[in-house]
């Protein structure tokens, strides 16, 4: 079985500073990989590099494309890459404002991604948008409201609906629960877990919250100062951390 997505030795410098160095991993359909580390550890740099939002200095990224098999993304043309990022890949930003159009209705936000991939029938697009709003537990009656009138948790769920409507196979998430109330966080994680299981999605989730990793991820990767210092099964890394930095992270979590 070939992986869905393969990251090979990704290295990014900011001038002489290391952003991230030599990061590699494979991810298979239905798998959730958590990347943790404190701020400045390079986890968001890595996520932005592998999701085609930031150029990198060394390394290769491969994706198992539906029509042409396992491909080095560097060999794709610009339109092909854009199409890929609109269909098979999706990105959920920490701040929903970065992933939504705040002045367009909720339904329009979901419909836009469908239209990008060729959907034109207004009725079908609206039906799909309403369906997805219900799936992420938003009242379909608010389909014509702007996201600016939604709460933070609702905006985050709308962003997820917008991203999932085109049935991507790989989703990148940057601190998807950051800045939300604990009760809203739990609900969102519940929702994400359910969607991952139902749809067999592969997810790369970056977070500084170890509870999110325990709840969502099968495997995890710990980063410090741009380097990957430990990888493994999520429960193994959390329960039997080997690297000094991972031990520090795990032992620093407050018990409730």
């Amino acid at each position, binding site marked *: 079985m070939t992986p869905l997505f393969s990251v090979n030795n990704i290295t990014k410098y900011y001038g002489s500073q290391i952003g991230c160095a030599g990061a590699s991993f494979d991810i298979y359909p239905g798998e959730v990989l958590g990347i943790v580390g404190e701020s400045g550890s390079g986890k968001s740099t890595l996520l932005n590099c592998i999701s085609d939002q930031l150029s990198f200095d060394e390394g290769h990224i491969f994706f198992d494309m539906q029509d042409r098999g396992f491909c080095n993304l560097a060999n794709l043309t610009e339109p092909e890459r854009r199409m890929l990022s609109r269909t098979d890949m999706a990105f959920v930003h920490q701040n929903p404002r970065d992933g939504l159009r705040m002045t367009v209705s909720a339904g329009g936000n979901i419909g836009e991604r469908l239209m990008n991939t060729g959907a034109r029938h207004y009725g079908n697009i609206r039906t799909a948008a309403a369906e997805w709003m219900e799936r992420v537990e938003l009242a379909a009656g608010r389909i014509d409201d702007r996201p600016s009138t939604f709460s933070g948790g609702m905006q985050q769920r709308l962003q997820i609906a917008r991203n999932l409507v085109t049935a991507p196979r790989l989703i990148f998430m940057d601190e998807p629960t950051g800045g939300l109330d604990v009760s809203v966080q739990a609900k969102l994680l519940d929702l994400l877990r359910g969607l991952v299981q139902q749809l067999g999605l592969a997810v790369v989730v970056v977070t500084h919250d170890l509870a999110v990793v325990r709840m969502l991820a*099968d495997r995890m990767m710990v980063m410090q100062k741009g380097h990957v210092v430990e990888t493994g*099964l999520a429960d193994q890394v959390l329960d039997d951390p*080997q690297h000094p930095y991972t031990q520090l992270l795990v032992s620093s979590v407050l018990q409730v």
Partner: protein
Amino acid sequence: MFEIRDLSKSFRLHHQGGIEIPVMNNVGFSVSRGECVALTGPSGVGKSTVLRLLYGNYLLQAGQITIGDLDLGKANSRDILAMRHHQLGYVSQFLRVLPRISTLQVVTEPMRNAGMPNAPAERRAKDLLEQLRIPPALWGISPLTFSGGEQQRVNIARGMGPQYPALLLDEPTASLDQQNRATVLELIREAKTNGAAIIGIFHDAAAREAVCDREIDVGAFRPSVSACTVNEHQ
């Protein structure tokens, strides 16, 4: 089913002065299908550590563990996850589940992971919960709100659901009343009859005698004092 050779484990605590605590040395035993083996020894001797190593929850550092066809030392994360889904069940000492998920779902989930369709999985989950005397009124509620004994029974239902060929049981009868204890022992006997290889920790001697064929004293693998000193010099 289980084949364990020269297994050693120590914990290095980098933030406690970097000390290394050796837990066990050269553990070796094997367990066949249809057999139930008890790990014995005083508290803190490393019985749960053995189970966690077998489950892949603790990192295998030295020695060899083979479960079925899988060599844990050579297995990658995906192999271990697949093994947990299809081969190896683990009833931990304490139930650890996500909040807001109903008891019925908690018990059904491992069977779904093992590839069982939803309807029979749910039927078996209900059947197990009933046998273990969890009232149907509680099935829709998260087990995190339950008493210790109830949580333990949910944990057992969860581990027994998929009828794995290999099972790890960490104190399955602790904090249970007589009636429920008898039910759990019956479930363990049933699993044995179905050909499961079982490794368990039972503090309750009567329970141990009721289901176990052999005992393995984990204390026998305790590293000697001189071994500790050697480790400190390294």
